[in-house]
């Protein structure tokens, strides 16, 4: 009995292993063919190709993405792009990982830069440089330069393209127009003004306890913003060093921490995102993502909150991080699928569509021509909040694109959270953050 049992299992495992082995072998040969210099040139799509695009856009964001994709599918004879919503970014990342392990990766995905680094390390992501430079369906020099520099550069590793920018956001400051007017406060432009305004705006208002400044729960995860504003650096990608335990880092953490301890600033807490409390009128100012605009606009209208947005107040200097994801193609796709995905990527971020996308989602257009377009200019004139992000292009910077960036940011955020919760002093917090960062970096 035992023997039989074992043999059945052995058989089963052999079958499973054999199945995995096969598909692996086939993907390997595909990789080789597309890696060869002119492999992509011979590819022609003359029979129907359906590709999956895994994304994490929901609500209004998903609606526009579906519209654009339907337009694309309508314009194509043989290519069909199927959108698959994988939930949140976290879920998407997990599903990509699991799919990579199971050899069932989709053709396309949304991906942050540090995900791409991770994929690159594991040979999962396709080098799209041959497509970018292709004489027939590539992009001209002019067209390539039309993509906003910072976004384009973020997709280049060792001179090769591994993605194109898709939904890019930046942090902006929302404010409650009525509260500011009632308190006689100007929109703060510097840290000093931010603190002064928050003090003035905190207090009882129509039976509500209003706090001056609202911050996202992820404030410590994205603390680089404050460090850069203080004139420092959070992480040096070139040297691979965590830089926040510095006088500038201390200034930044002290500034934010003191506002929270003094009760003139708060995080979203159990509300998850600050858009909730802000649109209820619980906070007067709110520093958050430009992609949150639709989430502020809707409820604000319902609750009769009069709001607007402005650029982030500057410390020693103006600085704003650019966040959001890119679109990448997985290496496991066939040449036809890769070409189909490339066609879709081009369509997704062409001038017309990136404008359409930005107007509906609050993300930034990723092309200069879109920023210059009459349509966009008219729209931002009417909806000034959508135009705030682009005013900060010069002050923009990026997250470190290193392997294990998630672990590092998370480990640091954990210690900084302790400071904001009053468990550690600023100095202790920075010491601990550096120790944790170095541990993550394997130092």
């Amino acid at each position: 009995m035992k023997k039989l049992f074992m043999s059945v299992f052995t058989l089963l495992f052999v079958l499973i292993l054999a199945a995995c082995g096969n598909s692996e072998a086939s993907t390997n040969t595909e990789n080789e063919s597309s890696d060869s210099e002119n492999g992509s040139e011979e590819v022609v799509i003359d029979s129907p190709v359906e590709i999956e695009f895994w994304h994490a856009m929901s609500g209004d964001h998903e609606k526009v993405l579906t519209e654009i994709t339907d337009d694309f599918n309508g314009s194509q004879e043989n290519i069909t792009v199927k959108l698959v919503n994988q939930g949140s970014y976290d879920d998407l990342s997990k599903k990509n990982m699991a799919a990579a392990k199971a050899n069932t990766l989709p053709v396309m995905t949304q991906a942050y830069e540090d995900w791409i680094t991770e994929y690159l390390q594991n040979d999962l992501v396709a080098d799209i440089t041959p497509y970018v430079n292709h004489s027939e369906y590539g992009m001209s020099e002019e067209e390539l330069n039309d993509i906003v520099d910072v976004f384009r550069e973020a997709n280049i590793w060792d001179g090769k393209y591994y993605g194109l920018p898709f939904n890019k956001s930046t942090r902006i400051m929302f404010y409650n127009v009525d509260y500011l007017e009632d308190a006689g406060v100007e929109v703060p432009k510097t840290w000093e003004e931010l603190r002064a305004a928050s003090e003035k705006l905190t207090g009882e208002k129509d039976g509500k306890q209003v706090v001056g400044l609202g911050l996202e729960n992820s404030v410590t995860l994205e603390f680089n913003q404050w460090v850069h504003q203080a004139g420092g650096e959070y992480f040096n990608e070139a040297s691979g060093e965590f830089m926040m335990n510095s006088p500038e880092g201390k200034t930044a953490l002290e500034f934010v921490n003191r506002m929270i301890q003094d009760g003139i600033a708060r995080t979203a807490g159990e509300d998850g995102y600050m858009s909730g409390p802000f649109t209820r009128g619980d906070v007067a100012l709110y520093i958050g993502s430009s992609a949150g605009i639709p989430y502020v606009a809707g409820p604000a209208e319902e609750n009769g909150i009069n709001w607007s947005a402005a650029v982030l107040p500057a410390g020693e200097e103006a600085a704003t991080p650019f966040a959001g994801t890119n679109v990448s193609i997985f290496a496991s796709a066939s040449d036809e699928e890769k070409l189909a995905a490339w066609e879709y990527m081009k369509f997704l971020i062409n001038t017309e569509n990136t404008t359409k996308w930005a107007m509906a989602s609050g993300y930034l257009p990723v092309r200069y021509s879109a920023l210059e377009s009459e349509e966009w200019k008219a729209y931002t004139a009417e909806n000034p909040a959508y135009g705030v992000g682009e005013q900060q292009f010069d002050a923009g910077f990026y997250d470190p694109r290193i392997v294990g960036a998630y672990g590092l940011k998370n480990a640091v955020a954990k210690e900084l959270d302790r400071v904001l919760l009053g468990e550690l002093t600023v100095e202790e917090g920075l010491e601990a953050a550096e120790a944790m960062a170095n541990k993550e970096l394997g130092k």
Partner: protein
Amino acid sequence: MKQKPTLQSTLKALLYLAPALIILGVFNIYPIIKSFLMSFYTDYDYFKDIVHEYGFDNFMFIFNDSEFWVAMKNTFIFVLGVVPMSILLSLGIAILLNSKIKFRGIFRSIYFLPFVTSVVAVSIVWRWIYHTDYGLFNYFLGLFGVDPIQWLTDPQWAMPALIIMSIWKGLGYNIIIFLAGLQNIDQQYYLAAQMDGARPWKRFLHMTVPMLSPTTFFVSIVAIINSFKVFDEIFALFNGKPGPAYSAQTIVYYIYEKFYNEWEFGIASAAAYILFIIIFIFTLVQLYIGKRRVTY
């Protein structure tokens, strides 16, 4: 019926068992073996399944990781906070539901509802209940002059908040099991005891408790194992983070973080194995006690 197994009868039996065996094998046994092996991978390519080196590094790492020990401590606090309280409460409620009270059926459904409701839905409701400014909980506490408690954002209160919700969530299941146990007790014993003049408390202590011991034993084993494995409740209640400043990070959450967010597959497997061993030891201890204390 034939006593001696022949090749034919064994094959036949195997055929009947095959669907269950295959499913268990693929989804339970294989992962257990795989993660055991993976806990010894020190240098490997996860996606291509190539292992360059085996060793004990992963275990060394978690034993030296202060976070792992904090997670361990939190897990024990959680188990101690949930299991005894949950058993006591559900036993009490089960006894009430077993007596002749009005609307018994409705009450039974009410208590069983949390068990069949999804954890995510439950957590969303509790997130609202726990809300500092708008929550029901703080409103009631306010009636007694208690200042609002930051249940979900103060590290000191995160664990109590989690424990309270978990007790509530687990009640329904335990109550049903206890009810079944109670109804298995022959009423004749109680009548006899009553005639002998035993008071209710004495009857409970000397009759109900011993006769219910197999049920209590079963409930406690299930409750302890489930509490050690707590994850969904934390994930949903704190919005995908293990509480403020990781104050409610338990061992499964630690494994999850290592595996999915940090791609440290070996370390995650090693931690999972430690959890397995802990649960295994607890179950052995319970079985040992069970043999001596439980009367069937």
